[in-house]
């Protein structure tokens, strides 16, 4: 009735073309690194100054000076490079990163994204989310389709403060793959057993079938 976290990561990874430069956000997006199809070269960017980031190391090889944006130990592939923070964000802000995969609290049908603050009284934090939202050529989101309380995260309009406006190109949830389309979400794919009615019930904006003229894209 829904895709697992690994299944979603594999679907996301399958949509990344050979040779793409891809930034992976913290949390669920990190998992995409483990699902790049064999034989396909994809170059992963980490905001803290790494291109060519590889998978997690064995515990004995962990190096706390080789960490990802989530501060977890990673590895470097042959062909990888280190650089400083201004250069790293020049890649993001200058439009050089092809794809970034971010988490989300909410996505609106017009492509607005909210993922930096829930507006509560906790400590606010933004990190690189707004830079990625503004700079990556294609912003894609992985998120659970609803909150833990069962409320939709895909909405007609954001209720939370925005990270960026009209920037999300595609959304991968446990239930479906969708695209913001102005006042509705286009449904590109559904998990096995998920009906349009079930999806509509869990989505806070109208649904629309995939644009057949774009069918080849997925």
């Amino acid at each position, binding site marked *: 009735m829904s895709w697992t976290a690994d299944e979603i990561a594999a679907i996301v990874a399958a949509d990344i073309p050979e040779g793409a430069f891809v930034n992976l956000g913290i949390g669920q997006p990190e998992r995409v690194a483990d699902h790049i199809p064999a034989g396909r070269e994809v170059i992963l960017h*980490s*905001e*803290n*100054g*790494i291109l060519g980031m590889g998978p997690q190391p064995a515990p004995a090889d962990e*190096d*706390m*000076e*080789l*960490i990802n944006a989530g*501060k977890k130990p990673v590895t*470097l592939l042959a062909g990888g490079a*280190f*650089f*400083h*923070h*201004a250069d*790293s*964000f020049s890649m*993001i*802000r200058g439009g050089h990163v092809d794809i970034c995969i971010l988490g989300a609290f909410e996505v609106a049908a017009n492509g607005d994204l909210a993922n930096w603050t829930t507006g509560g*009284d*906790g*400590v*606010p*934090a*933004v*990190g*690189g*989310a*707004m*830079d990625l*939202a*503004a*700079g990556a050529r294609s912003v894609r989101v992985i998120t659970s389709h609803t909150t833990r309380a069962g409320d939709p995260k895909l909405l007609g309009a954001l209720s939370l*403060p*925005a*990270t*960026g*406006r009209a920037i999300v190109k595609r959304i991968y949830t446990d239930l479906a793959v969708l695209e913001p389309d102005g006042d509705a979400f286009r449904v590109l794919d559904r998990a096995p057993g998920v009906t349009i009615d079930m999806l509509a019930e869990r989505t806070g904006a109208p649904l629309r079938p995939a644009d057949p003229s774009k069918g080849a894209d997925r």
Partner: protein
Amino acid sequence: MIDKVNDDAVAAVAAVRDGDTVLIGGFGEAGNPTELVHALIEHGARDLTIVNNNAGNGEIGLARLLMKGRVAKLICSFPRSSHGHVFTELYKAGRIELELVPQGTLAERMRAGGAGVPAFFTPTAAGTDLAAGKESRFFDGREHILEHAIRGDVALIKAETADRWGNLVYRKAARNFGPVMAMAARATVAQVRRVVPLGAIDPEQIVTPSIFVDQLVIVPDPVSERDHLLEREGAR
């Protein structure tokens, strides 16, 4: 003979005065100049504005500086952390000011400060709450906001290897904010694991050239934040 090595870490950071803006390198635990921050605590300056990507972990380095009440304001992109109780408590008690800045804007504002650019336009944060009060302008039909340079009075950074002129190379992702902070401060103090003879660093590989560095403090075996945090957990 130029020799920027200072055997006395407290003397090396003595340029910091009450009320100064101090840039502190590091992302996560990579590149934190923990020993220099401890020297700054010993030096005693207070009412500081600190620029750092995070807000300190556990009770060493920046977290300890915060705990000692020396910091009036933090300019920062990601002050949330599972080990960030010191900042969280100060913030919730209203005892510290926070300026939250997108990470790339933070890096670029310091790079601008170091490069003689007082202000620049960026699309990052345009149309969000973090653009509140900022001048905005459209370029090619897209909204941008004007961001101002950050310059530090002093930068405290960590590098791997130096020579006596102050040329620096870093190690892996510990490079992060070091090079931009070194550019952006009136005076830069770098803690390094080692100092090698002049000419021993390949001139093609120098990341921070000598012109950006004023003082060097050798710390061959810096404290590990990870060990510190594990120790604290074990003690519970």
